[in-house]
């Protein structure tokens, strides 16, 4: 359960105050898949970092109810550029978040292997990040987040840097993983079609500072089609909200 009340965030840099987010209310029930749309620099990534507990809000209140018992972390992040540690193999990259001393090495490796299997990357354990394609690295990054078994999965434009075909297969993997693990997902993206294809609910943030512009539930039953004509009015509406700048 995520509950944001009047959340605002202001950065102070070199004596200058930059207000990034203002007066944001958001409630996310457990297991929901939320996509966040908005133009560049509107504070979508900042919002994820507030939910992750990496940035304290400057105003309002951010409540994140998620369990952290044993080896589990309450929240895990997937970044746009994978951000695997280049000196680690795939296996130890995936086990990274489990190195808090609560479980032993063999159990950690078992969990890492299970996470790799979940993202369709078995057999890649001994590879180094530079030996893989962008899409494969992104799967490993997803496995690293899943390995800590978080209640909440935060994804910051995770598929933006991969080619279109890889992107579609990654989207389908994510939908499958969400359906089997029932994790809450907050997924930031620039692509309206991606947002509509994936989400139970799309929220749009616009303006400077960023505010919540819309929150639209998507009731289309799953499995979905990317070119579903029923979604066209919704896509048009989101496009209008976001302005023409993000028409991907």
């Amino acid at each position: 359960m995520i509950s944001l009340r009047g959340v605002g965030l202001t950065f102070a840099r070199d004596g200058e105050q930059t207000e990034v987010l203002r007066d944001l209310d958001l409630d996310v029930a457990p297991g929901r898949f939320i996509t966040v749309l908005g133009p560049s620099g509107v504070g979508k990534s900042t919002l994820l970092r507030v939910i992750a507990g990496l940035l304290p809000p400057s105003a309002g209140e951010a409540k994140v109810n998620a369990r952290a018992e044993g080896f589990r972390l309450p929240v895990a992040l997937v970044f746009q550029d994978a951000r695997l540690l280049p000196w680690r193999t795939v296996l130890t990259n995936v086990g990274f978040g489990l190195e808090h001393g609560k479980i032993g090495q063999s159990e950690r490796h078992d969990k890492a292997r299970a996470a790799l299997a979940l993202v369709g990357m078995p057999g890649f354990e001994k590879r180094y990040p530079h030996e893989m394609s962008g899409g494969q690295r992104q799967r490993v990054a997803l496995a690293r987040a899943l390995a800590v078994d978080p209640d909440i999965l935060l994804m910051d434009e995770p598929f933006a840097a991969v080619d279109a075909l890889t992107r579609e297969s990654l989207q389908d993997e994510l939908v499958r993983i969400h359906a089997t693990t029932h994790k809450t997902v907050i997924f930031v993206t620039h692509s309206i079609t991606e947002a509509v294809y994936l989400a139970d609910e799309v929220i749009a943030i616009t303006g400077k500072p960023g505010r919540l512009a819309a929150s639209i539930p998507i009731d289309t039953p799953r499995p979905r089609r990317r070119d579903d004509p029923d979604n066209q009015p919704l896509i048009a509406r989101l496009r209008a909200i976001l302005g023409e700048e993000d028409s991907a």
Partner: protein
Amino acid sequence: MTRTRSLTLGALGFFAFLGLWEALPAFNIVPASVLPPPSALPNAFWREVTSGIWFAGLLTSLRNYLSGLAIGSVLGVALGVATGMSVTLESFLSWVVRILRPIPGLAWVPFAILWFGIDPAAAIFIITTGVFWICYFAALGSVRAVDRDLIEVADAFGFRSAHQKLIKVILPAAAPGILIGLRTALGQAWMAVVASEIFGVPGLGQRMMQASNLLASDIVVIYMATMAALYGLIDTSFVMLQSWVLRWKR
């Protein structure tokens, strides 16, 4: 050029070099007392080895070398990493560093002798000073250059303390740069060893100077070759260690 051809040419050049070297004293173009012919060297080497002087000098020099290297690199890397992680510490030290850093390592010789006498400790001090600065700046630069995004990964996965970030991300990410600094220090430290021994600290360099004063130039060459071989051996071993530590870079 094929491999065999370049190997042959290399060997040819080497033997031409030896031949010329042998010819210069043989035809009395240069007196043998000033330039000993290579054919005289095995004999000289055997005398030094059997008298035990060579091995004793080798051990003493190696001990000074490794002590200075260990102290200097541990202190340099530790302070460099700490300074790289803390802006406060960096500002605090900035003036001191600006004053001490430009002093050439050998300019410390008078103080080394004043503080430690003509003693291995003086040699170790000189070596340590040279190694320290190289390691300090290598560590400082590498730590500052660590990708902030990777540090955020540590944060995101619950490694929030400076100590955890250091172990999980900063040290491994900075390792390539620190190792390059260490390798530079390996060579620098040899120069310091030889220099301090020329000033009288016991070791290979001291024996070399004694031989030079006695005009035993063949023995001088033996010690020059010994130093070169040792440095080559140490550097090669280090490069092997380095590529093993950095095997993830392919």
